[in-house]
C-alpha cells in the first residue's frame, strides 16, 4: 500500500516537472529537493530530504521506456567531499539504492529486487561547469545496466542572486544496454532561485531531454 502511494506521488510529480541528475543531490540540512529527469532512456523522479550537509535520503521512481521497466527504490546519497574555493566549488558524491523492478514479460508481470550504486563528481565556477556521473544497476533476472555521462557547461554571463542564470551545456552519455550506446545532447540550463530547468535534444538517439529541480 505504501509502495503504491509512493509510486502514485512520484509519478504525479514526474508529470508536472522533470529534473536533472546533475543538480546537487544533497541540499542544506532540513531541506527537501525534487529532482526529475527525462532523457532518451528513462523518466525518473527523486524526492529527497537532506538530513545533514553530507547525507540525503530519498524515494526514487524510474520508468525505463525501452524495456517498460518500473523501478521503485530508496536512495541515500552521500556528499563524500566538497572542495571550496573563493571562485569555485567541487563535489564528490556516492549514491546507492535498493528497491523493486517490475516488467511485463510475455504477458506475465515479473518483479525483481533492484540494487544500484552511483558516483557523481562536479567542478563549477560561475561560468564553467564540468561533471561526471556513473551508475551500475542490477535488476536481478531482468539484467544489469551501466551508465556513464559527462557534461561541459558555459555560462555566457554571470547572473547575480535571484537573477535568471543561463548555461549552454553539452552532455555525452554511454549506456551499454542500449542500441545507440553513446549519444550527445546539447542543452540549455536555466537557473533561478530554488528552481533549475534544463531543455535539450539528443542528436544521436533523437529524443528530448527535459529536467527540473526544485528545492524547498
Amino acid at each position, binding site marked *: 500500500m505504501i509502495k503504491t502511494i509512493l509510486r502514485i506521488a512520484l509519478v504525479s510529480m514526474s508529470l508536472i516537472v522533470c529534473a536533472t541528475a546533475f*543538480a*546537487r543531490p*544533497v*541540499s*542544506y*540540512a*532540513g*531541506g527537501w529537493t525534487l529532482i526529475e529527469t527525462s532523457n532518451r532512456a528513462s523518466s525518473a523522479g527523486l524526492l529527497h530530504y537532506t538530513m545533514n*550537509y*553530507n*547525507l540525503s535520503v530519498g524515494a526514487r521512481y524510474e520508468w525505463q521506456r525501452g524495456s517498460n521497466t518500473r523501478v521503485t527504490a530508496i536512495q541515500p546519497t*552521500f*556528499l*563524500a*567531499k*566538497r*572542495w*571550496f*574555493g*573563493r*571562485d*569555485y*566549488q567541487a563535489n*564528490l558524491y*556516492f*549514491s*546507492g539504492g535498493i528497491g523493486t523492478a517490475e516488467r511485463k514479460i510475455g504477458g506475465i508481470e515479473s518483479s525483481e529486487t533492484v*540494487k*544500484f*550504486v552511483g*558516483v557523481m563528481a562536479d567542478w*563549477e*565556477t*560561475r561560468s564553467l561547469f564540468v561533471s561526471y556521473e556513473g551508475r*551500475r544497476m*542490477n535488476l536481478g533476472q531482468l539484467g544489469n545496466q551501466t551508465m556513464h555521462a559527462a557534461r561541459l557547461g558555459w555560462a555566457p554571463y*554571470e*547572473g*547575480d*542572486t*535571484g537573477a535568471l*542564470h543561463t548555461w549552454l551545456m553539452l552532455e555525452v552519455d554511454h549506456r551499454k544496454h542500449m542500441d545507440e550506446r553513446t549519444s550527445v545532447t546539447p542543452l540549455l540550463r536555466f*537557473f*533561478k*532561485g*530554488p528552481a*533549475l530547468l534544463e531543455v535539450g535534444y539528443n542528436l544521436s538517439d533523437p529524443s528530448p531531454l527535459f529536467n527540473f529541480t526544485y*528545492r524547498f
Partner: protein
Amino acid sequence: MNKTVPLFIAAALATSAFADDDKQEMKHHGDGQMNHADMNHAHGAEHDHGANHEPESHEHHAMAHDHGDMAMIAATITHTNEISAALANGGAPVVVDVLGVVCDFCATAMNKVFSKRDEVAAIYVDLDKKTLNLVINDGSDLSDKQIEKLAKQAGYRIAAIRRDNEAMGG
C-alpha cells in the same frame, strides 16, 4: 551484483572526508585587505591565540592575506531594501566571506538556514562579492562560531567575518 557491494562500502566510508575538512579552523586576521584565488590554502602556520584563548569569546573581524599585487579591499555590506531597513531599525551589520558560493542554490541554502534564526533581521547572499550579508536584530547576538556552524549546515565554509564599522566600510 557482488561488484556493487565494495562500491557501496566505499561510499559509506567516504562520508568522513567532508568531516576532516571541517576540522580546519577559520582563518582570522586583523587587517582590512584580502585576496585569494583560493582562500582554502594554508599559509604555513596556523595562528595561535595562546592557552587562554576562548574561541567563542572574541570577535573576529576583517581578514588580511596580503599577496602583493593581488590584494583587494574586503567586501562591505550589500545594501538591499531589506538590509537597509533592518540597519535603519538599529540592527548590527555582519559581512561573511563564504567559500564556494557559485550559484543560486548556494544562496537558497544559506537563506533557508539563516532566516530561521530569530536573531537575523535581514539576509542577502551576494554572488558577485561571494558574501553572506546579515543584519542582526538590535539586542541580539550571533557569534562567529554560530555563524560558522549555520554555514556548515547549509553546506558551506566561512573564510572571514566582519562586523559593525568594518562591515560598513567605515
